[in-house]
């Protein structure tokens, strides 16, 4: 199936600004899904609120565009009631880890089989460039005209600590790697997290004098390195890309089915 067969052309043009990284993530995601040969009827995409969350409406899956921060909670309801479906949950950084931070750590703790994609542009783009919990310290934003003073989350470390059984990171520049990571995440049985560093030239780039989309993509190229590389040892400021956690643990829906079985023993 061609990538374009996954798109609802009726709903275009999309809302994203020129140079936005979300379209690159969308492209990578569709190539990952295509390579898996899954039926569109088996895929449910659940998203929250924000630029990144509009991704669901453009795709020809079962799509649920919900409320701010709660996509993983809605997705949990879908998955628990129909465990055979594949759940993909694209979120922005504010959506996933500010208002939605609680649902994020609890979904990870349960190890429910959802694929969470954190499209991290370090800013609230849709609402005008407010700083997010992933902006990090010393970042300029509409709501931080003299730079932020609060530290950011490290998505990878947070997901790992909360119990996610697949954790990976890539960027909008490294599309081949991103496609492979998204594919692995979808195939993984359990809670998987893929953080994608993506550019918002409109707000983050402009406010922080990072140049346009091309310069921001170059920044991803120059400031990231594969996990465990020699470059990282020499320059600890580099951001690592790749798979950080990949392990087998009991999956929540399966464990829950066993509870039902135990509870109904001898009653049917």
């Amino acid at each position: 199936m061609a990538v374009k067969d996954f798109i609802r052309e009726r709903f275009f043009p999309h809302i994203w600004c020129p140079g936005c990284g979300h379209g690159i993530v969308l492209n990578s995601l569709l190539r990952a899904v295509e390579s898996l040969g899954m039926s569109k009827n088996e895929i449910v995409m659940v998203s929250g609120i924000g630029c990144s969350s509009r991704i669901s409406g453009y795709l020809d899956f079962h799509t649920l565009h919900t409320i701010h921060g709660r996509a993983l909670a809605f997705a949990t309801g879908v998955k628990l009631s129909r465990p055979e479906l594949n759940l993909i949950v694209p979120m922005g950084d504010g959506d996933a880890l500010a208002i939605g931070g609680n649902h994020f750590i609890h979904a990870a703790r349960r190890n429910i089989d959802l694929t969470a994609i954190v499209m991290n542009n370090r800013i609230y783009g849709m609402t005008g460039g407010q700083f997010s919990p992933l902006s990090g310290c010393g970042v300029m934003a509409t709501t931080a005209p003299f730079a932020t003073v609060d530290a950011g989350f490290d998505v990878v470390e947070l997901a790992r600590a909360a119990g996610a059984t697949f954790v990976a990171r890539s960027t909008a520049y490294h599309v081949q790697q991103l496609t492979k990571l998204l594919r692995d995440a979808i195939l993984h049985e359990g809670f998987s997290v893929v953080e994608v560093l993506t550019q918002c030239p409109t707000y983050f780039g402009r406010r922080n004098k990072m140049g346009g989309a091309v310069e921001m993509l170059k920044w991803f190229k120059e400031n990231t390195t594969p996990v465990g590389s020699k470059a990282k040892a020499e320059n600890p400021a580099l951001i690592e890309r790749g798979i950080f956690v990949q392990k087998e643990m009991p999956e929540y829906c399966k464990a829950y089915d066993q509870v039902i079985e135990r509870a109904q023993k001898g009653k049917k």
Partner: protein
Amino acid sequence: MEDEIASMCAIIGASLTGHKVMTATSGPGFSLKQEALGYAVMAEIPCVVVNVQRGGPSTGNPTHVAQGDVMQARWGTHGDHAIVTLTASNHQDVFAMTVEAFNIAETYRTPVILLFDEVVGHMREKLVIPEPGEIPLVERLRTSVPGGVDYHPYLPREDGRLPMSDFGGVHRYNVTGLFHDMWGFPSDNPGVVHGLMRHLVDKIENNAGQLARYKEFELQDADTVLVSYGSAARSALHVVRNRRARGEKIGLLELQTLWPFPAAVVREKCARARSVVVVEMNTGQVMREVKAAVNNPENVFLANRIDGTLITPTDIRNILRLIQGRGV
């Protein structure tokens, strides 16, 4: 789930796969559910939300009785909308109203709130569980459009109903909390917004008569009508039985549907009454609705209690004595 917000969201997700769903909470948890409740209104997702009322606002008076959430049930989520809310005064009716709530949720594609209170929630009493089939069950209306043919998830039929298609089935469509067109795709077109708002409100408000559930006791010749609901109605019924035994013309209208407010029923049942006393455990949330419904609002009085204890027959009798000019 991790909190009340998450459980409200999860049941909406589960409902979309074709299951009947509910969540239950009390007081603050009901406040937390409000945003997602509005989502279920907007996206027309059948679901049932139980709120066993306790004293509020805030943490308030946990495990003590109150009926202060009547207006929150009506207007708790932001934005103009319609909602269905049922209540009950005893366990047999809690059972019946819960089944009703699911039937209404499926029929009208709406969240239905079951607004009980602490007394009904904590007490123990006899319950006869009916045989399967004794109470009619409404199953979800599903589309007959075959796979491969365009299915419009938000295009109402002539009767206003919207057949659904389960997530995971042959029809893939978009569900959103934004105003949306017949495809379920976001739209801010004024015509689309107006049409959807009218649809969401009219499908409930235009059926207020069909949604009205109530019980009546000794209303045939009553010149004093008590209007009550939930556990307060138990004390009201006690007063009616005692006073009838002494020859007083007094009756009780027990409301089981609170929203849409059964104004026509209240107006009709109170038409001959010289005084109407609303018995409730708040500062008059239903009383104001009753005043708006009846022909003579100056004859509507309030017998209430707001201290976390069940209103007693004596409390109601004291108000009746005041109205009748007999002093306390």
